[in-house]
């Protein structure tokens, strides 16, 4: 499995959509224009040479000092062909959104909700775009690099372990990182 999938992708979509790629010992990555991610996903699943039936993971990287800031990463696997592919798409801090691939792979549903929950990246046309792990009252996105390290948002009245003072529900800023 050397470059077959990457070559197919470039042949079908061209350099306007496949912005770059790299390959190392069968570990292949394609960098995709974010607006086209759903079309690329549909092709990769349906094309007979690619046959990526399964989405293993969707995650995100916060390159805080770069622009576009967020890099959404998709890990694909072909059960029939036994090969893998990684897709990356960069979205800007000002408008972090890209199309959902839930219509292609149902398994992407919760992965995309988690990326939204932790990084605030919005997936258009997602059937259920809610937080998945945190509670609805939570403000902000905790895995962003500029979220305070100890930015707790308690739901019940509690004591601060450092001062012993009662803290009402809402945000405690016991800030050891950068300010939001």
């Amino acid at each position, binding site marked *: 499995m050397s470059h077959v999938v990457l070559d197919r992708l470039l042949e079908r979509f061209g350099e306007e959509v496949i912005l770059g790629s790299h390959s190392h010992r069968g570990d292949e990555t394609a960098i995709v224009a974010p607006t086209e991610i759903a079309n690329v996903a549909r092709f990769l699943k349906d094309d007979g040479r690619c046959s990526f039936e399964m989405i293993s993971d969707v995650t995100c990287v916060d390159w805080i000092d770069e622009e576009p800031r967020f890099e959404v990463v998709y890990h694909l696997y072909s059960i029939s062909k036994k090969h893998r592919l990684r897709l990356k798409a960069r979205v800007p801090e000002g408008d972090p959104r890209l199309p959902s691939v839930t219509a292609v792979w149902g398994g992407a549903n919760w992965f995309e909700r988690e990326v939204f929950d932790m990084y605030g990246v919005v997936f258009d046309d997602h059937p259920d775009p809610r937080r998945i*792990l945190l*509670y609805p009252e939570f403000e902000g996105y905790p895995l962003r690099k500029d979220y*305070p390290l*100890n930015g*707790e948002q*308690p739901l*019940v009245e*509690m*004591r601060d372990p450092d001062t012993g003072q009662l803290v009402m529900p809402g945000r405690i800023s016991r800030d050891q990182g950068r300010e939001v």
Partner: protein
Amino acid sequence: MKIVDDVGSLPVITTTREDAIGLFSSLVKGGLKGGLQWARRYSLFQYPFVTACCGMEYMSVSCARYDMARFGAEVPRFSPRQADLLMVVGTVVHKNAPVLKRVYEQMTEPKWVMAFGVCASTGGFYQNYATVEGIDRIIPVDIYVPGCPPSPEQVLDALMLLQEKVSRLKFPDGKEAGT
């Protein structure tokens, strides 16, 4: 005929109904010194609030090999209304904190709380947006069992220490229970 225990001349086996009635009435009316605490300390019904890997250790300590029942904590109760001892076994996160608080409030007095494992005691190695750094930020804790996870022997020691505490329970007017 009756067989009396070696601590408080309590009839543990008896051939007459009167002695059996006498046991319970003496416990309740406080005719027997320390009887009520004696009953309480050896009948701790636990509510296992199990959230994380410490649960495996709880299972170990409550099952046959270590057998918490030998020390007078026989039955886990899965309704807080029937429990005296809330065992918080594992990490509590902010999302779960209202549930823990409600479970505690639903228990009837007198009640005790054990923080089982270092996460429940202090948050352990978690210090982040999600974790409550010790359940004593939300509810009162009677006994802490740090350890990741605590060994079953440590939990049994903690249980015996808690039983000491139970037997010294005082009412708000300063009188000891059962006296």
